């Protein structure tokens, strides 16, 4: 089978809108969490979000939106976009530059695109509200393409003239981890030479606040205290949006063109809980099997793993379930370091897997272990897990990143520092 490497990254996240900004935030443990103006109302008990800086969406009309200088986006590209597609467009631009891709390689029959997004619930609401209150004749021309989850790949395929295979993944909060795993498979099977993997979500009250219905969101009001995965005081996740892009490439193809290689994708695994629509299996069985699959696929032993970027959203049930899975995998081996970078970024939902895989690439390439922020009192139920509560000097060589989602979907991706061969 072909080998798979990552040759470019792009970030629009709460902790930075570029590789250097994200790297600095991770190393200095700078949080992207803020009091969110959209949650200011007295009727909204949730106050925090991992806000995306440098973008504004004052109305649902794209010509009112603003985005950071330096991105060239034409009107006909912007008109069908959702906020998450705009974030992704900017992150794609960064990843293409970093991977040193010519326009011919971006728009090539052997270059594909795998996207993950929950869609823009905001624009879906606006469009449907217009139809219901003003009639079908006032249905805006872009009402379908900027409402559905497929909006992300629709916009990016057209915007970047993608010619290879393109599709979207929809498996809740493991969506973009699935996208990375499937992209790696497409390259290993030599169906494509290169794949863009994109995770992106809006960051607004429409896509975050519905999680209040299952009491999954933190009620903390101090941005310095939440989310706090693995801490006894954790009370739910803090939502975020943005986009992350990984350029996933066949190794020989990357070497031939002298591409800058960030990390190698060694393999991946997936499994389902078969348990509940929203509650993770408390035994962690599904995630354990996904991790076992990833190790098998990657020809790794548990003792080879230096670092695990945990899914750990800071919910009471989720973190414990994941600890159970980790405990079962590593009970007889060296204990890897474990952290939740969501405690700095917030939980990006469909974006999470791509964002955290890209963060693992930074950790492997730049030689640092991300900290699990905001832990002041580690939950005794997590005490036997080697959680990174403060900066440590260790640099990981092999990392796993976990993602789990509603319905009990679980994905684990194994990545290795690129050491030149």
């Amino acid at each position: 089978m072909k080998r798979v490497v990552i040759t470019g990254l792009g970030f629009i996240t709460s902790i930075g809108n570029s590789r250097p900004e994200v790297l600095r935030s991770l190393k200095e443990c700078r949080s992207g969490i803020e009091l969110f103006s959209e949650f200011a109302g007295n009727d909204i008990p949730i106050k925090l979000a991992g806000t995306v800086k440098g973008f504004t969406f004052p109305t649902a009309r794209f010509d009112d939106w603003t985005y950071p200088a330096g991105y060239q986006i034409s009107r006909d590209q912007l008109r069908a976009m959702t906020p998450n597609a705009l974030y992704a467009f900017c992150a794609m631009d960064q990843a293409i530059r970093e991977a040193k891709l010519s326009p011919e390689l971006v728009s090539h029959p052997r270059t594909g695109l795998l996207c993950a997004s929950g869609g823009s619930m905001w624009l879906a609401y606006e469009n449907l509200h217009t139809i219901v209150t003003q009639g079908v004749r006032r249905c805006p021309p872009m009402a379908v393409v900027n409402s559905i989850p497929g909006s992300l790949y629709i916009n990016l395929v057209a915007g970047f003239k993608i010619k290879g295979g393109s599709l979207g993944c929809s498996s809740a909060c493991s969506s973009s981890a699935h996208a990375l795993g499937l992209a790696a498979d497409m390259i290993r099977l030599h169906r494509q030479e290169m794949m863009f993997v994109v995770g992106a979500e809006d960051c607004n009250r429409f896509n975050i606040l519905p999680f209040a219905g299952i009491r999954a969101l933190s009620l903390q009001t101090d941005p310095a205290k939440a989310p706090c995965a693995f801490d006894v005081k954790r009370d739910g996740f803090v939502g975020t949006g943005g986009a992350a892009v990984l350029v996933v490439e066949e190794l020989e193809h990357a070497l031939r063109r002298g591409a800058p290689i960030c990390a190698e994708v060694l393999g991946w695994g997936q499994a389902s809980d078969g348990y509940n629509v929203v509650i993770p299996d408390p035994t962690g069985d599904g995630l354990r099997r996904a991790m076992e699959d990833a190790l098998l696929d990657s020809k790794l032993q548990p003792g080879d793993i230096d670092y695990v970027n945990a899914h750990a959203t800071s919910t009471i049930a989720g973190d414990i379930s994941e600890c159970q899975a980790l405990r079962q995998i590593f009970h007889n081996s060296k204990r890897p370091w474990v952290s939740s970078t969501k405690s700095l970024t917030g939980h990006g939902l469909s974006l999470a897997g791509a964002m955290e895989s890209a963060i693992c690439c930074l950790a492997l390439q730049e030689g640092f272990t991300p900290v699990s922020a905001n832990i002041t009192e580690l939950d005794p139920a997590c005490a036997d897990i080697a959680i990174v509560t403060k900066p440590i000097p260790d640099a990981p060589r092999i990392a796993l990143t976990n993602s789990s989602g509603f319905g009990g979907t679980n994905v684990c991706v194994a990545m290795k520092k690129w050491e030149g061969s």
Partner: protein
Amino acid sequence: MNLNATELAEIQKELRRCNPETVAAAIRFREQGDSTAIPPVVYGLIELYQPATAKLSLKDANDETRLIEDLGLDSLALLEVVFAIEGVLKLHINNDELKEIRTLGKLNQFLRDKIVTAAPATS
């Protein structure tokens, strides 16, 4: 018939990126049914939706100017223009009628014909 404050606000919102002449023409059409107000509204909206790469500027256009080939509107942009015209002038263009509209002259004439049979509504 004078427009009420809500109707005026709707027009101003829809045309907020157009020049004041376009807004004034839209109000004149809605209040007086004045067909000479149609071209300034059409021009104002096309200007808004025309891509920077279009081979012909609107100021050099005439009745024969083709909306797609000359002014660079793609079929989606044409739908956006029609959607905006319908919203501002309160006229409806159905699918069969839309197929016939290929030039600026056709669009203006079509809208003029439309008001002969249906006076603008000021709902």
